[in-house]
């Protein structure tokens, strides 16, 4: 159809062009040219006539003009011939014209040649009259010469036959009279020669001249001109006819054009309506990317206004994101080669920087080839719908495949981010204890980096109502922020701005009415809220919530099953390995289970016990009490009982046991039963008795040691007591004397009596000490000052020291912290060490006998006591042996002293050891823990 229309149009145009060309009468200008040639010819003809006449008259001596005129005629004729041939007119008149020109040429040549000679001879004749030679001859020849000249001139004027014959007569006459020979003869001969020449030449030249002046070309010229004019008139008539035809065809064409125009206008209006209806975006562009026109729909799609369009701010290249440029180039190439390109899906940048998915197709305007029209369909809705379906589907699939929410969440974030085209996603979980949201997962597109936003998100927690996650948490609804940067309730706003994040949305992971977590997404672009997206997010949120709940239930079930299994296993282990007997019994009597300890305790196997009741194995004397307690439990009066009673073993032997029995209420499928825990009292009692006996033994040994020491010290202690007693006696007597004075000196007496009191107290003290040491009392723990205790020991040992000539040096640390322990036993240890030292030094003759007793605070808050002597010392290999029982170097002694000392110190949690003293002697040291630092163990044995 289009082809036929185009062909018709071309045909019509060709017809019009043809008619136009025919109607123009193209040979008009050629005709004019020919007319000019005719004029040139006529001019040349006239020019030849004039110039020939002038030349004949002797007034024109230059034949160049004749040559030029003749050439002009030839040129004119050839032009006319060309026209005639072009017009296809009968060339006969032109041939005649050419023949006339040839005639002219011939005549002209004849005229030029003839006229030259003619002029020469005339010039000769005219010169002859002035020639001196001629003058000399004049006397004789003058009349005839003059007559000859006159005849020549007559002929020159009138070349008629009469004139010619008249000249001939004169020549003859002159010749008859002319002299022969000599100068005169020569002159006469020359004159005759010239006259003869002239007589033939003059008529001939004049004939030629007459022929020339008769314009032989005029007739053929007019003839040719007439024929040409006729032909011209004919072609003009044809042209007129064609003009009429042209007019008619034009009229037809005009009608067609008008109708076509109306039709096109209708079509254009339809297209215009399509453009203006703004159903799809339409714009007119060129290959350079300029956009000249666009409808509102297009502007709406890309977010520009008409002003932007007019000012040229909207450019195709600016609209296209970089990743689509290459695809664009391909489309342009297709456009160039085929004139259009298949619609492609791509994206455009909107004015605000966001992207809009579009379907674009374009076609070039055929006539320009550089401009075209493009159609743009906004695919946002379709894309969104697709995205949402895909997201929902993907999330559902991820949830179906994932084992845990931890495994699913990064995949969900990535899938949602990629499908929906968001750049950063974060999952927040509710921390129940902190009542805050904590970021547990953060995803971002591989192409971007948001290090600070990620770090801060992971560190930050959100309370309800704070920030996007907090808002979603409190509202239980999805939320959308077109741009977080200016948002007031968005603590991460400044970081988002720095790292180029703008739009955001968040949605809760909901289960029932409870928020389990919040998912949020961020985009680098500013995006407008999208209710459908939010609706979909709500769905996804509850989908995830349900998933979490399902996983929780699964986990809980799994965990409880495991716990049960573990508990049973643990119970079984306890049951099997417990050092106590355990058994369960049905409420109606017999055992159900009994652990190995219980079986061992009674000598029955488990199977045997299943046929026995608790009462069956109870000693006869305890059965009544037991039955009473069981009945109470059965009646619900008590849940459990505890009693010490006897069992009778299978072998008849009686054992004491402590029984704890409880009634275990029914649970689930298990009916109520009794559980009993039985402790074998026989063994326990035996061990306790043994420990008691050992302790007593140790105490007895220590006491014995003290008594023995006191015995050793008896003499010196007696002195110690005697001395204050004596002093007291003296002071008493002095007091009596003062009282006896008249008047009695009461002051002095009081003073003396005070001294008596002091002495008595001193003696009393010593006796108290001795009594303490000798007293057999159980050890007791207490806080006491170590230095004071040591000073008391020195007092006790004072006499023994002095007796052995030993000097004592005490260096007791100031401010020593109190220690915890049995004061008497510690004093016993110090006394033992002092007496050993004094005795050791007493055996040495030479050297100073120096005893040093020092205390110091240890770093741990305890105290260390050192007793040094300058005695013989102890061999290095015996340093440890001295603490063994029955080891002694002394002649007198049990060898138990140091052994008992070590037991005492060990029981205090301290340490006793011996070293060599510098420069000689031995040093015994012991440490004691500070008060409260160590629990004092009341037991004597180092366990």
């Amino acid at each position, binding site marked *: 159809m289009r082809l036929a229309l185009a062909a018709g149009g071309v045909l019509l145009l060709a017809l019009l062009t043809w008619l136009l060309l025919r109607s123009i009468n193209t040979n008009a200008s050629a005709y004019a040219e020919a007319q000019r040639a005719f004029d040139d010819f006529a001019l040349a003809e006239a020019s030849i006539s*004039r110039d020939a006449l*002038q030349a004949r008259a002797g007034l024109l*001596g230059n034949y160049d003009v004749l040559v030029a005129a003749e050439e002009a005629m030839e040129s004119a004729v050839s032009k006319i011939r060309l026209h005639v041939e072009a017009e296809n007119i009968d060339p006969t008149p032109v041939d005649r014209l050419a023949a006339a020109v040839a005639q002219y040429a011939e005549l002209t040549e004849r005229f030029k*040649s003839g006229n030259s000679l003619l002029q020469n001879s005339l010039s000769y004749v005219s010169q002859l*009259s002035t020639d001196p030679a001629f003058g000399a001859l004049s006397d004789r020849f003058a009349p005839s010469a003059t007559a000859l000249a006159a005849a020549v001139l007559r002929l020159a004027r009138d070349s008629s036959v009469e004139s010619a014959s008249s000249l001939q007569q004169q020549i003859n006459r002159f010749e008859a009279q002319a002299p022969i020979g000599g100068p005169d003869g020569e002159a006469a001969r020359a004159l005759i020669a010239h006259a003869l020449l002239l007589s033939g030449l003059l008529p001939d030249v004049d004939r030629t001249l007459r022929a020339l002046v008769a314009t032989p070309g005029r007739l053929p010229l007019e003839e040719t001109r007439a024929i040409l004019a006729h032909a011209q008139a004919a072609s003009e008539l044809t042209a007129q006819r064609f003009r009429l035809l042209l007019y008619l065809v034009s009229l037809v064409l005009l009608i067609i054009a008008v109708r076509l125009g109306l039709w096109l206008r209708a079509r254009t209006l339809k297209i215009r309506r399509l453009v203006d209806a703004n159903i799809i975006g339409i714009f007119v562009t060129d290959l350079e990317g300029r956009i000249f026109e666009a409808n509102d729909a297009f502007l709406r799609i890309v977010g520009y206004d008409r002003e932007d369009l007019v000012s040229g701010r909207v450019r195709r290249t600016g609209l296209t994101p970089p990743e689509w440029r290459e695809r664009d180039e391909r489309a342009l190439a297709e456009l160039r080669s085929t004139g259009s390109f298949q619609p492609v899906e791509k994206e455009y940048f909107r004015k605000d920087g966001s992207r809009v998915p579009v379907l674009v197709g374009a076609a070039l305007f055929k006539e320009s080839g550089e401009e075209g029209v493009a159609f743009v369909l906004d695919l946002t809705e379709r894309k969104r719908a697709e995205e949402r379906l895909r997201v929902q589907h993907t999330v559902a699939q991820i949830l179906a495949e994932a084992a845990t929410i931890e495994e699913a969440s990064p995949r969900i974030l990535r899938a949602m981010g990629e499908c929906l085209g968001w750049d950063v996603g974060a999952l927040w979980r509710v921390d129940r204890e902190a009542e805050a949201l904590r970021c547990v997962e953060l995803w971002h597109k591989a192409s971007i980096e948001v290090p600070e936003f990620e770090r801060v998100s992971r560190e930050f927690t959100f309370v309800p109502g704070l920030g996007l996650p907090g808002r979603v948490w409190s509202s239980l609804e999805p939320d959308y922020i077109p741009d977080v940067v200016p948002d007031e309730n968005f603590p991460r706003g400044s970081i988002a701005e720095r790292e180029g994040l703008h739009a955001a949305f968040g949605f809760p992971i909901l289960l029932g009415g409870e928020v389990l977590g919040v998912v949020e997404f961020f985009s680098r672009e500013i995006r407008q809220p999208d209710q459908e997206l939010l609706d979909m997010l709500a769905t996804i949120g509850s989908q995830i919530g349900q998933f979490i709940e399902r996983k929780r239930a699964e986990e809980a079930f799994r965990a409880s099953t495991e716990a049960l299994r573990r508990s049973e296993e643990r119970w079984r282990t306890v049951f099997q390995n417990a050092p106590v007997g355990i058994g369960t019994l049905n409420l109606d009597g017999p055992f159900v289970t009994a652990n190995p300890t219980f079986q061992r305790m009674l000598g029955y196997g488990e199977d045997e016990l299943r046929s026995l009741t608790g009462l069956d194995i109870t000693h006869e004397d305890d059965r009544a009490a037991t039955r009473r307690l069981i009945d109470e439990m059965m009646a619900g009066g008590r849940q459990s009982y505890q009693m010490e009673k006897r069992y009778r073993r299978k072998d008849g032997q009686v054992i004491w046991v402590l029984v704890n029995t409880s009634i275990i209420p029914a649970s689930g499928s298990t009916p109520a039963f009794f559980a009993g825990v039985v402790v074998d009292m026989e063994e326990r009692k035996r061990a306790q008795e043994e420990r008691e006996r050992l302790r007593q033994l140790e105490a007895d040994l220590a006491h014995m040691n003290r008594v023995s020491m006191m015995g050793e010290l008896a003499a010196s202690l007696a002195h110690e007591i005697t001395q204050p007693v004596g002093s007291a006696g003296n002071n008493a007597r002095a007091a009596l004397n003062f009282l006896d004075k008249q008047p009695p000196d009461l002051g002095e007496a009081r003073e003396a009596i005070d001294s008596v009191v002091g002495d008595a107290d001193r003696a009393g003290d010593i006796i108290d000490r001795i009594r303490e040491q000798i007293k057999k009392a159980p050890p007791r723990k207490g806080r006491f000052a170590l230095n004071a205790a040591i000073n008391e020991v020195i007092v006790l040992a004072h006499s023994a020291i002095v007796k052995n000539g030993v000097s004592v040096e005490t260096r007791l640390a100031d401010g020593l912290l109190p220690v915890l322990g049995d004061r008497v036993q510690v004093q016993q240890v110090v006394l033992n060490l002092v007496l050993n030292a004094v005795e050791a030094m007493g055996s040495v003759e030479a050297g100073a006998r120096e005893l040093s007793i020092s205390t110091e605070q240890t770093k741990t808050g305890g105290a260390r006591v050192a007793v040094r002597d300058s005695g013989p010392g102890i061999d290095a290999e015996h340093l440890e042996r001295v603490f063994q029982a029955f080891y002694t170097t002394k002649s007198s002694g049990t060898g138990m002293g140091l052994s008992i000392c070590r037991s005492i110190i060990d029981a205090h949690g301290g340490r006793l050891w011996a070293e060599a003293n510098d420069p000689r002697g031995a040093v015994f040291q012991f440490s004691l823990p500070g008060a409260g630092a160590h629990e004092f163990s009341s037991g004597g044995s180092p366990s």
Partner: protein
Amino acid sequence: MPRSALTPVSWPSYLGRKASLSALVLLAGALTAAAQTVPSSPAAEPITPIPAPARLEPRPLALGEQLFHDTRLSHDNTRSCGSCHDTGTNGASADARDRGVDGLLLPLNTPTVFNAALNFRLNWEGNLRSLEREAEEGLRNPATMASSAEEVIVKINADAVMVQRFRDAYARPPDVAALLNAIATYERSLLTPGSRFDRWLAGETSAISPEELSGYLLFKSLGCISCHQGVNIGGNLFQRHGVFYTLGTPEPERVRVPSLRNVAVTAPYFHDGSAATLNEAVRQMGLAQLDRVLTDQQVGSIVAFLRTLTGAYQGRSVMPASARPTVDAVPR
């Protein structure tokens, strides 16, 4: 005899008998009467100066010059146009008759190529009207080049440089029309303006001496001027020779009147080259054509005038061919 006897003054009878013819003659006479009374004024002389050469296409011109001196134009590659027409001297040769390729003497004297473009017909016979036809005929003539334009084209087509020159000049490969046009173009440039007489014609009255001027006046009064007139001082009409007495060989009976431009340096003279000197030629011409026995003084006076007709080609005076040997230096 009084001078009035020779004056045609019977006006009424003259007019009465031949009204149309005589009226024109009379009118022309009246108009030029004043001029005739002052015969030495240059303004209305029957001779006109050589015009400045027309601007010619430089490439065809250069090509034509090269072709003019190219021996390949002759059949046996021995001679060029320049072999006889020595443009370095007088445009002809010093010989009375040159020899053809066949070694035989040519029938007529070689006319100079200088100012040939101003002749209305070419050659002694005046049988050719255009320089192109003349060149074509010259190539074809067995006596001169014994070749043909077609043959020359074949030869030139074998020369890549020449082919390129033709393309440059005519935008087409060499052909006969281009070949002839190039040669003719070159010949059209061979004009010799600037002769002393032309300068006198242009109004420079001191360009010629009084003796030379009187020679010119004599040249006119004797009637030489009736044939030797126009821009080329001849060359625009045919005339028979030996009107009163025989002049050289009888054939051709009628010749195109030769130009007297550079006549002083284009000896020898006449169609058969029979006059070796200009004086001799003037004397013979006076007798044969005018039936005048000129005195030595008259001959000397006319020759003095004729010497003022020597012009210059490319600023260099045309010189006699004998002044230098005819060397055909073809710029290749």
